[in-house]
C-alpha cells in the first residue's frame, strides 16, 4: 500500500519512506515523516500530481514521488 494508491478523501498513516537522498530529505523537511497521518485531497485534472494534507497544510507531489511513501495497512 502506498500513498499514490489512495483516492481523494482517503487517508492513511505513513509506515516507511522508500525514497533516498535529496528526495527523502525534502519529504521529511516538509513534514512527511513515518507515523504521520496523510490524506489525499485532490488529483490534478490530468491525473498527476496529487494534493495531500500533512501537518495541517496542503502539499502537492507527483505520483511517482508518492509511490515511495508506504502506508500502514488499514486495520
Amino acid at each position, binding site marked *: 500500500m502506498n500513498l499514490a494508491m489512495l483516492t481523494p478523501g482517503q487517508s492513511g498513516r505513513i509506515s516507511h519512506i522508500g525514497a533516498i537522498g535529496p528526495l527523502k530529505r525534502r519529504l521529511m523537511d516538509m513534514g512527511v515523516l513515518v507515523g504521520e497521518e496523510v490524506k489525499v485531497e*485532490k488529483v490534478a485534472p490530468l491525473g498527476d500530481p496529487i494534493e495531500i494534507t500533512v501537518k495541517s497544510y496542503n502539499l502537492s507531489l507527483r505520483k511517482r514521488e508518492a509511490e515511495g511513501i508506504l502506508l500502514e495497512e488499514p486495520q
Partner: protein
Amino acid sequence: MTMQNSVRPLPATEPAPLRIAVAGNPNSGKSTLINSLAGTRLHVGNWPGVTVEKREASFERRDERIALVDLPGTYSLSPYSQEEVVARDYLVEERPDVIIDVVDATNLERNLYLTVQLLELEIPVVVALNIHDEAERMGYRIDVTAMERALGVRIIPTVATKGTGLEALLDAATAAAGDPSRHRPRRLHYGDDIEAAAEALMAEVLRGHPDLAGKYPGRWLAFKLLEGDRRVIDEAGLQGIDPLVARAAEHLISAHGEDVESLMADARYARATGLTREVLTKPDVRKIELTEKIDRIALNRFLGIPLFLAAMWLVFKLTFDVSAPFADWLGNVTAGPFTRWTRVLVGLVHGPDWLISLVTDGVIAGVGSVLVFVPVIFAMMFFITFLEGSGYMARAAFVMDRAMHSMGLHGKSFIPMLLGFGCNVPAIYATRTLENPRDKALTALLIPLMSCGARLPVYVLFVGAFFSSRSGTVLWSLYVLGIVLAVLMGILFKRTLFRGESPMFIMELPPYRMPSGKSLAIHTWEKGKHFLYKAGTYILAVSVLVWFLLNLPWGVEQKKDSYMGTVGQAIAPVFKPLGFGTWEAASSLVAGVIAKEIVVGTMGEIYVPGKVETPSGPPPSLSEDLREIGTSFAEAGKNAFTNVFSTAGIASLSEKGESEPEREGLRGVMAKTYTPLSAYAFMTFVLLYMPCIVAAAAFKHEFGTWKWFGVAFAYQTVLAWSVAFFIYQGGTLLGLGG
C-alpha cells in the same frame, strides 16, 4: 597598501552596523515583512555564484545603523537546494548579530521546524509570529509567553501586510543583538542517544582540530557531521573524518534502525510538534476556509484547466494590451519629437551630419528600443508577482504539471512559455518563478521558439505578398510549428543536455492571500529598474555597433557597400540552399538581431531606396510637440483602458496599420525576388533563428552568465537553417518551387 591601511584612523564615531538576517519559510510573508521594514531602501542583486535573488537594505533607526539581509525562503537548512545552501552559508560564515525568524502563525508546526534548526546555530533569534490576524480569525490561540519560555527567544506577533508589530520586532532584535549572552537561544534536547553521539563526536573532532572551536558552533557541527553533510565536511577541512563519524553514528543507527539524517529530521520535528501542541489551541469545529472553497472550483477535474486557461488569457491580455499603447507612445516620442529636437540641438552646435545620424539613428533609436520594453516588463512583473503572492501560481503548476512534465519541464514553466507569445523578453524574466536551476534553464531555452509579437510584422509582410488567400492558415502554421518544435526540443534536451533524474515537484499549495500593494509596487519597480540599467547597456551598445556597420566605411553611398552589406554578401551563400541567398535578405536577417521586426524596416530601406520621409509643411514647434506628447500619452492611457474591455482577442497581436501604401511598394519588389516557397522558408527562418539582443540581455541578466544564451544561439541557428532547408528543398522536390 599596508601603510595606508595602518594610517587610516578607525571610524570611532561610526560603530559597525547591526547585522540582521531575516529567515523564514516560503509563503510566511517574509518578503512582505522585509518590504515593510526597508521599503525603497532595498537593494536587489544576486547571491554570488547563483541566480538566487539577494535583497538587502541598510538604514538608520534611533541612531543605530542597521544592515538587513533577506535570506532566501526555505523550509529547512539542508544542503540540497541552492536557496538552503545560500541561507546556511550566510548564517554560518557571516554569523549575523541577530536572526529575525518569520513564522506563519497559521502553519506553526512546519514553520517551527526551521526555527528549531536556526536555534542550533547559537545566534540570537527573534521570532516574528506573522499573519497573526489570520490565525486569530481562524480561532487559533497561541500562548506567546509559553512559547518564549520554551524557546528562550523573544516572540513578537506581527501582521506584515499592515505593518503591525514591526517596531516592536526591530526593538526586540536590537536588544537581542546588543546583549547576546542574555539572548542565547535555548538548547532543545534531541533525545539522549543523539545528544550523546554528538557530544562524543564533538570531543573527538576538537581534539584533532582545536581551531574549529571558534569557527563553528560545536553541537551544530557534530549534527551536520552525523547527518553526513558533505558540504560541511569539505568546508571545515574534515576530509577523512568519515570513520570517526561512522563509529559515532553506529550506535544510533543500530538502536533506531534508521539513517541519521532521518533520525535528525524526526528529532527536530518532534520538538516542533511538541511545542505546537503546548502553545496552540485550535477551535474544535474547523471552519471551511476560503482557500478550500476556491480550490474546489479552481482545481476541479473538469473546470480546473478551462479556468486556468481563462486566467492565463486574462493575464496575457492585460500584460500586453495594457502596456502596448504606452510602448507605442514611448516609441513615437523617441522616434518623433525627441529625435527631431536632438537633431536641431546637434545642428545648433554645428555637429556634422554623421554625428547627427549617429546620435539619432544609433543612440536614440537604441534607447528607444530599450524604452519600448519597459511598459511590458512592468506589466508582466506586476501580474507575475500577483499570481505568486496570491497563491495561484502554485495551483497553475499543479494543474499543468502533467503536460509540461512530459517534455521535461515543470508545471510552472507554462506561464513563462505563454508570455513568450507576446514577447520573449519578459517571458525569460518570468522563469524566475522556477526554483530549480535545471527547470529554469530548460524553460528559458524553449521560450524563443514561441513566436513573439515582433515576428508578426515579418509574417504579415510576406503573407500579404504571397499567401493573401490563405493568410490565416499560413500564419497559424508558423505558430504551431514553433510549439511543435518546442515540444521536440524539450524532449531532446531532456535526453541530452539535461539528462538524469528530473527535479522533484514537492510543492506547498499555500492558502490564497491578497498580496500587499506595497509588495506589488516594490517588486514591479525593482525589475523594471534593473531592466533599464542592466539590459539597456547591452542593447545600446549593439544598436550603436549596428549603426556603424550600416554607415561605415566613411561616405558610403549604397547600402550594399557598407560593412553591413559586405557582411550580407559574405554570408548570403549560406542561405542559398534555403531559397533566399541574396545579400539583401542576409543583411536584413543580421539587422533583425536587434529586434525581429527590424527585418521589415531594413528590407524597406534596402529594396525601396530613396524613401525618405518628406515632412509636409513646416516642422512643429517645441510647444506643439510638447502638447502632442501630453495628448498622445492621455490617448495611450485611454487605449490601454479600452483594450482591457475589448474582449475580442489580443489587440497587440492583431495586424494594425501595417499595410500603409509604402508597404505596397515593398510587396511588389518582394513578389519578384521570392517565390511562395522561399518566402515560407524565410518566415520559418525568422521564427527560429537566434533570439534578439534584448532577449540575449535578458538571458545574461537572469542567469548571470552568457552560457544559456550561447546554447540558445547555437541550437536555434542550427534548427532554423535545417528546418528552412527541409522546407525549401522538400518543397522543391515536390514541385512547389515554381
